[in-house]
């Protein structure tokens, strides 16, 4: 069969489609976005009517996928690592309910924080939920794992996690497909109480979850994704997890690798192989991208026993993405680095696009806030976060999606006035709405700026759930209509914008200001332009 050239993300998407997927539920987030986008663009997915529209946030995505699983079909939910924080309640409890149709949770971590606030390791969550975790080392394995994960999920009636990192998500290689499977037929769970987590049922389910541990461990031991390679030099045994295996092998392309290696891509850890390695080797080196999850497990609290090397003892850096050179250093291998980067090479930080509406909104806000002094703007996550950089220096916080409105409220409660929130339309419907309700309930004096560009700009212009609903939502939450102010942010409107902002900053209650202009990167998106026109925006 002809090889397809696929990103790791796309390989997962194709694997899921071929495994008889009936719906993907996701909220965009680098580096996971391309999984869902691939399914949205797939002809077979369209023919099969596989659900692929974006969800409002990761929690709604996870729960909807669980609902599809309840009804017997194969469902997948995808998110970036921090998205799993948002969906964590649903995720942990989905392991307690278990599944009916196969449920696969794909989480893309971002070590080195290429485009994220932190580098949390989702394997910790997978272990927390006590489910199987698959961590592919290459694109073919990503495809195979997605293809087989649904069956594994159905066999033990538990969700399965696929964990990848940025490098695999956004790297392309040839992938060979397997035969396409039919979708599941709808079916209800055999036990009508399976999904009812009243304490009595939950205790029963939890005991069942605990009882699957030996089975999941056995599956890992027999997994085609885990393998032991023998080596005669037992002074060191190597555990190489997921993509770290590639960096290990890269360094031994032209050299003999004489140490035993356990290539690890399915968890819980296969105890038999780990024990074997520990017994036969004097010391162990753990290579894993992300947190030292396996290293910590092997090390435990006692320093006695087989010495374990990795990120915790400084053999590898404690933070950041691995790469072939870092792994080479762990083996004291020489690196023939090229010439150094000349001093004249300057960094090019990402910036908002020329002509972006956020820029005009910030210009006005900076002027309107001049009389009050700095330090009072709580922003959120999106392109407008780049307003933190010069020349705007317009914002003072960016923590997690939705935190702008709630932090502004907390600061206002502490006496900061005016207290301003800046949030995008997509982030507002992701998790800003509930915080706004808190403020309205107490009539907290905050000024919320929802910089509306009709899209989810930062992640590449996906649909925004807010489109066509924004004012109704805000009114529905209870913001007084005369304090909902909409205008078009342009250079020509600067004075008017400043005036409106001044008025609302002065108001002793909740006001919402909506600078509204389409993201210029989406102007060629015909269907969006058409929709905006139809809505009269």
């Amino acid at each position, binding site marked *: 069969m002809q090889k397809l050239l696929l990103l790791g993300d796309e390989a997962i998407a194709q694997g899921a489609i071929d495994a008889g997927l009936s719906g993907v539920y996701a909220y965009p987030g680098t580096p996971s976005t391309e999984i869902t986008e691939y399914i949205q663009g797939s002809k077979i997915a369209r023919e099969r009517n596989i659900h692929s529209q974006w969800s409002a946030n990761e929690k709604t995505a996870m729960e909807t996928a669980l609902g599809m699983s309840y009804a017997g079909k194969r469902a997948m939910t995808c998110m970036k690592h921090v998205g799993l924080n948002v969906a964590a309640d649903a995720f942990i409890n989905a392991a307690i309910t278990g599944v009916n149709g196969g449920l696969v949770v794909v989480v893309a971590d971002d070590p080195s924080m*290429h485009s994220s606030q932190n580098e949390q390791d989702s394997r910790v969550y997978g272990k927390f939920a006590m489910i199987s975790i698959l961590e592919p080392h290459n694109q073919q394995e990503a495809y195979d794992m997605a293809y087989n994960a649904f069956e594994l999920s159905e066999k033990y009636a538990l969700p399965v996690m696929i964990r990848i990192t940025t490098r695999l998500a956004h790297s392309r290689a*040839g992938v060979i497909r397997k035969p396409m499977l039919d979708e599941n037929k709808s079916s209800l769970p055999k036990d009508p109480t399976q999904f009812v987590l009243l304490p009595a049922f939950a205790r029963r389910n939890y005991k069942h979850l605990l009882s699957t541990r030996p089975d999941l461990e056995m599956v890992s031991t027999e997994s085609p994704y885990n393998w032991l390679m023998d080596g005669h030099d037992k002074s060191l045994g190597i555990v190489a997890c997921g993509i770290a295996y590639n960096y290990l092998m890269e*360094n031994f392309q032209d050299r003999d690798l004489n140490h035993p290696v356990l290539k690890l891509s399915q968890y819980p850890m296969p105890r038999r192989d780990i024990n074997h390695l520990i017994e036969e080797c004097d010391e162990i080196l753990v290579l894993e991208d992300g947190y030292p999850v396996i290293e910590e497990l092997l090390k435990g609290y006692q320093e006695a026993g087989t010495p374990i090397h990795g990120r915790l003892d400084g053999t590898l850096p404690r933070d950041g993405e691995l790469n072939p050179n870092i792994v*080479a250093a762990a083996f004291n291998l020489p*690196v023939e680095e*090229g*010439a150094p*980067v000349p001093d*004249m090479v300057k960094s090019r930080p990402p910036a908002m696009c020329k002509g972006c509406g956020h820029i005009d909104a910030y210009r006005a806000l900076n002027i309107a806030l001049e009389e009050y002094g700095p330090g009072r703007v709580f922003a959120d996550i999106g392109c407008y976060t780049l307003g933190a950089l010069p020349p705007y220096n317009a914002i003072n916080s960016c923590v997690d999606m939705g935190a702008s409105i709630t932090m502004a409220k907390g600061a206002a409660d502490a006496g900061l006035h005016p207290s301003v929130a800046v949030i995008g339309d997509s982030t507002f419907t992701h998790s800003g709405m509930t915080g706004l309700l808190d403020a309205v309930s107490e009539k907290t004096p905050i000024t919320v700026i929802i910089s509306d560009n009709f899209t989810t700009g930062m*992640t590449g212009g996906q649909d925004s759930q807010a489109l066509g609903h924004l004012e109704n939502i805000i009114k529905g939450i209870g913001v007084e209509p005369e304090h909902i102010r909409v205008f078009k942010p342009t250079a020509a409107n600067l004075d008017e914008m400043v005036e409106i902002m001044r008025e609302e900053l002065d108001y002793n209650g909740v006001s919402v200001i909506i600078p509204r202009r389409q993201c210029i990167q989406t102007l060629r998106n015909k269907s969006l332009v058409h929709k905006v026109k139809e809505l009269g925006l």
Partner: protein
Amino acid sequence: MKSDIVLAGVGGQGILSIAATIGMAAVDNNLYLKQAEVHGMSQRGGDVQSHLRLSSQPIASDLIPKGKADIILSVEPMESLRYLPFLSKKGWLVTNTTPFVNIPEYPDMDKVIAEIQNQPNHIAIDADKIAGEVGNRRASNIVMLGAASPFIDIAYDALEEGIRKIFNRKGEKIVEVNLKALRAGKQATEEAIAHMN
């Protein structure tokens, strides 16, 4: 056969089209390929890079180790220098000379060019100008692919075929311009090499 290429440029300059073209050619020639791209934040006028690895043998790492790249292929002169630690001693630096100035402290152009010329193996051509001459300045990325083509272990025809496939849905005119751009880039390198000898 192996070619390890660092593609460099600024977001929006089309290095992913270069990668896609080479990728298409590689797959058609049954070569192994890995190509690590940068998506997300860095596309907003930030620096972007892609590691492209071709080989007749299976490839282990998605990232090229330092000192192992055979080619740095850059569509922007300052960006070509950012990845020097990756270039092998025998490797080639192939770069466009038209700068993309979107930062206040962009270095003095003469110094950038001097530094490029300081590298043992380099090709520096004005791809924007050449692309303009063949009919579309936006094809400067493909001019640069043409300029690097003599150093990539893939038949030139295969790259042409790659261009046809990648640009096909944009229409025959765009395909033609890019084929011309590819050829013009190749010629520029051949002339530069003839000059050296």
